[in-house]
């Protein structure tokens, strides 16, 4: 396995970016925000499949919760319309509340699971909700000049 990184700050100081993987959107159920749970081959040696799938599934659940069309969204919509949407100047929308939860969750996942494995998840909102960007780092001390397109398994040989 790759070198242990103890926290996110160490990751930045002692690692160099090797590659990035982009998890695409899953449009099978329409235009609601959902990401594919297919495990990318570049992460094969870096993280367990179940951990990755759990992360993506939890994110998908959060987005589904944000975009759910039900009683609460109707109430919010009708109330907002009645006030000519001025209420949004003082109130946070449900979606924004869920986005904050997502940001916190991603931060927590990075600290606990991904950074120790030399990986980093970027919040999809930073990429226009199009992709989940996972940056793959390798320890600077190990291989010399790393080719960005080479597979990560090359760096584990020491």
């Amino acid at each position, binding site marked *: 396995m790759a070198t242990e990184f103890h926290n996110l700050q160490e990751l*930045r100081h002692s690692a160099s970016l090797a590659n990035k993987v982009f998890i695409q959107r899953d449009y099978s159920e329409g*235009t609601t925000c959902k990401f594919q749970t297919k495990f990318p081959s570049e992460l094969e040696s870096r993280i367990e499949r179940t951990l990755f799938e759990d992360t993506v599934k939890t994110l998908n659940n959060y987005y589904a919760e944000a975009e759910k069309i039900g009683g609460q969204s109707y109430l919010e919509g009708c109330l907002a319309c009645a006030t000519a949407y001025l209420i949004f100047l003082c109130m946070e929308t449900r979606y924004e509340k869920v986005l904050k939860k997502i*940001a916190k969750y991603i931060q927590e996942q990075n600290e606990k699971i991904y950074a120790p494995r030399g990986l980093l998840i*970027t919040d999809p909102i930073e990429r226009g909700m*199009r992709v989940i960007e996972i940056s793959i780092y390798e320890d600077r001390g190990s291989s010399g000049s790393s080719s*960005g397109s080479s597979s990560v398994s090359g760096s584990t040989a020491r």
Partner: protein
Amino acid sequence: MSAVMITRKVRKWEKLPGKNTFCCDGRVMMARQKGVFYLTLFLITGTCALFFAFECPYLAVHLCPAIPVFAVLLFLFVMAMLLRTSFSDPGVLPRALPEEATFIEMEIEAANGNVPAGQRPPPRIRNVQINNQIVKLKYCYTCKIFRPPRASHCSICDNCVDRFDHHCPWVGNCVGKRNYRYFYLFTLSLSLLTIYIFTFDIVHVVMRSMNGGFLNTLKETPGTVLEVLVCFFTLWSVVGLTGFHTYLISLNQTTNEDIKGSWSGKNRGQNPYSHKNIIKNCCEVLCGPTYPSVLDRRGLLQEDTLISSSNPVPQTTKTTAPLIPNEHTPDDAKPSIAASAEKNASPKEEHPAATKVPPLASPETDAETSIAKERAH
């Protein structure tokens, strides 16, 4: 050798590609051509001003004082909806950053295989299945992304917009996912306002003519003629537009799809986005969740300009973004990472060759992209 580092805080909207104009330090986002929007504003406020000046005093006294009150409320609602439609982000999709663009290109090349020399490569299309219907996603050469379903590239604003409806010059902005309901409410309330003013103009003229004669009435309130004229022409267009959009909403279609005939003719009844229920479709469009803007317009970018006295030529301007590009969010968890990134920025002046700028986040200058590419290979 003395080096001076000038740090300038720049907001992300200043570096956004596309042909939008931004006001109020990124809070307001509109298209470039705003002339017709000013005309819309003038027509609405002008007609209402005439109504309040000429009709309301008479009607409040002779008919009911609630008439001007309701007119004021309706007018305020119309203006609020218009400004909300015009000033908000319609759902612009940010362009792909270099790594994402490269990743997509590699996927396309892998999918196409080897194209013999001289032959044109196949069009860049991705097929996805949505609710058992095959939908083709097209590749946008400007934004370097495969457009999500229902997104389209607006050539006037030079942006890909999610759930693109149309570009409306009357509101001076695109109408897309985020501001469609405001646009619809604007047309609906404007129809009501127009009908309201037109009706009470007629009532006012009739009432006054009964006392003084028709021509005298027109002499006393010349504004009425103007109002009736404006309302008459507005009525046909705006009421018609409201009706058209009500039809589109009930079918969960966009103007763009309607014009292209995506789900009509031989494809009728195959719209994968429709819930096949008018009420559900209306509820989704009008009472659905309020989507956030993914364009972080007011986030901060830090631009460091390095000027060293030993070389007369200033160094390249680098945009230093922290590792996790969340410096704009008010999260408490983030500052440690942002702080470490900013601390990293200062020692850079001693090692200009060893740039440790991660090629992430914000739109970078070409110089930075080339530096990043050199590091990667």
